[in-house]
């Protein structure tokens, strides 16, 4: 709505009698802060990606050497392959489960058991989202402790002791268990956002669908899903950006290992910066990741615009 007005009358502010340029002073603090804290450092980081530097001493300009090395670096590609699995754990599975849970919460629990009960159940699913990610990671690391952790103890108590595992320490289970932990952390986010979207749906639509003899799945497809397309897109965009930036759980739980089985771009670049003091190479990895995020966001925003236009 506002966009149309903006494009029609670009020269006017919404305050009668004030030209848009009169508002520039209000932007100065924000833009200066952005310049100092984000734009200059990012430009600097791009420059660093063209250098060899140990963090101290002289900075040596090496052109695209770091970038060439990056393209041939199996660990770098592995980190992006793992990002794919992280996206499955943070975007795909929670969004799918979130759609199901939020529609049952809204459709069944809220209507038949009251909105108090629905809010309470929703709060339980949302709780891990509110914990600092470092604290959530430490807690889940504790649950999956190899020797005396709760999961291994539970398996033994129910007679499945043979399934005990060094969950985050073995190459075959580290990535799947990391994914389980990320799903646990993430699930509340889509549920809460989808539920708020579903409050807008006209109950008469459901009733009309019921009168037409639609079953639950048909109502979900025809009424629920189309109603929350905007929320769905917001969740997919923000969660994917979050997934690409994943750092804390990997740093605290697996350090990318064993080997490179759980390495992700953020951790790989952090490792280059602060453990190996390969500042130029770390800068190249983090710049590459930033570019991937920007390209994804731009493409996604264009798709989002098209979808919304079609819906309108």
């Amino acid at each position, binding site marked *: 709505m506002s966009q149309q007005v903006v494009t029609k009358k670009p020269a006017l502010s*919404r305050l009668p009698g004030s030209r848009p340029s009169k508002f520039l002073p209000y932007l100065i603090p*924000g833009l200066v802060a952005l310049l100092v804290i984000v734009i200059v450092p990012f430009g600097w980081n791009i420059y660093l990606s063209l250098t060899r530097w140990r963090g101290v001493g002289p900075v040596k300009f090496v052109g695209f050497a770091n970038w060439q090395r990056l393209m041939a670096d199996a660990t770098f590609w592995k980190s992006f392959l793992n990002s794919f699995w992280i996206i499955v754990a943070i975007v795909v599975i929670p969004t799918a489960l979130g759609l199901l849970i939020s529609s049952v919460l809204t459709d069944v629990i809220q209507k038949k058991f009251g909105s108090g009960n629905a809010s309470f159940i929703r709060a339980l699913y949302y709780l891990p989202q509110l914990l600092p990610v470092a604290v959530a990671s430490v807690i889940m690391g504790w649950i999956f402790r190899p020797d005396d952790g709760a999961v291994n103890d539970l398996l033994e108590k129910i007679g499945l002791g043979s399934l005990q595992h060094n969950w985050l320490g073995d190459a075959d289970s580290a990535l799947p268990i990391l994914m389980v932990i990320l799903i646990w952390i993430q699930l509340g986010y889509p549920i809460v956002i989808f539920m708020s979207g579903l409050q807008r749906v006209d109950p008469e639509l459901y009733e009309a669908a019921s009168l037409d003899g639609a079953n639950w799945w048909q109502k979900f497809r025809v009424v629920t899903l189309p109603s929350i397309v905007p929320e769905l897109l917001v969740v997919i965009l923000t969660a994917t950006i979050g997934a690409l930036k994943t750092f804390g759980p990997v740093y605290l739980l697996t350090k990318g290992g064993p080997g490179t089985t759980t390495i992700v771009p953020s951790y790989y670049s952090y490792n280059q910066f602060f453990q190996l003091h390969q500042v130029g190479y770390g800068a190249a990895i983090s710049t590459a990741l930033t570019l991937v995020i920007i390209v994804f966001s731009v493409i996604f925003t264009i798709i989002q615009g098209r979808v919304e236009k079609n819906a309108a």
Partner: protein
Amino acid sequence: MTDATVQTPSQGASGKVRNQSKHIRTWGDWLALVFLIIGALVMLFPLLILAMNAFKTIGDYNANGPLTLPDHPTMEGIASFWKSSNFPLKFVNSFVIALVVAILGVTLSVLNSFALGIGRVKGNRWIILLIMLANMMPQEALLYPLYTMFKQVGIYNSQLSIIVIFTVIQSAYGTYLLSAVYGTFPQAILEAATIDGASRWETLLKVVLPISWPTISVLFVFFFVWTWNEYMIPMAFLMDDNVQTIPLALSALQGQHTIDATQLASASLLSIIPTIIFFIVFQRKLNQGIVAGAVK
């Protein structure tokens, strides 16, 4: 671009419809309830187990494992982390950083959004996109230059460094949301303010600010919680024990190999208590905020 309304939409459609059908519960409804409760218990399981073991002695843990209630409940683990981490100081550090970021972040968001949403400064959509970079960028892409800059000006290893960075990062999201809200600010009210002879500054303070207060307070709570939860940049920039935050204190513990399972459980439980308190205090605000962030 997200269009959000000034007032968050009211929850729920018509209550009457719900009440009519409330009493007819089919077995399918009960089945759905049971499944959701089982799911919720799975979500809660790690925290329940944690709480059970936070009050256990290590002897009890080694003998009976993590799945039993404590034999002789003890506060020793909690007290020991309280002392060893200097928990009150960590709490104050986290609190001060989060509070100042929330105040400054909201202030910047309002100023930006007034110019972009109401002032419609030329190129406003591009400026919003540029500002959003702060939010999209992986933090490690800023880490080394900021580290170098802050060392030079002498604010490395201080809370100020974290405050400056997160004020900018959080206000990016705030500008994105609030400028959409201000883009749909009731035109009649703005016109009335002009007719009354209010300057731009007066219009902002006396008209726009009070009316958009619900959205602003939601942003405030968000900024506070998000900053409280931050990990990577505080870890890289807060070296000394006396400036560190709660998440750093807990994660430092995990690195120590001498730490036993019950101590870690006690420390984790203590670390999440402030979060649980916010959760209870701010639950309504958070719900509204999530709505404000997602609605079209």
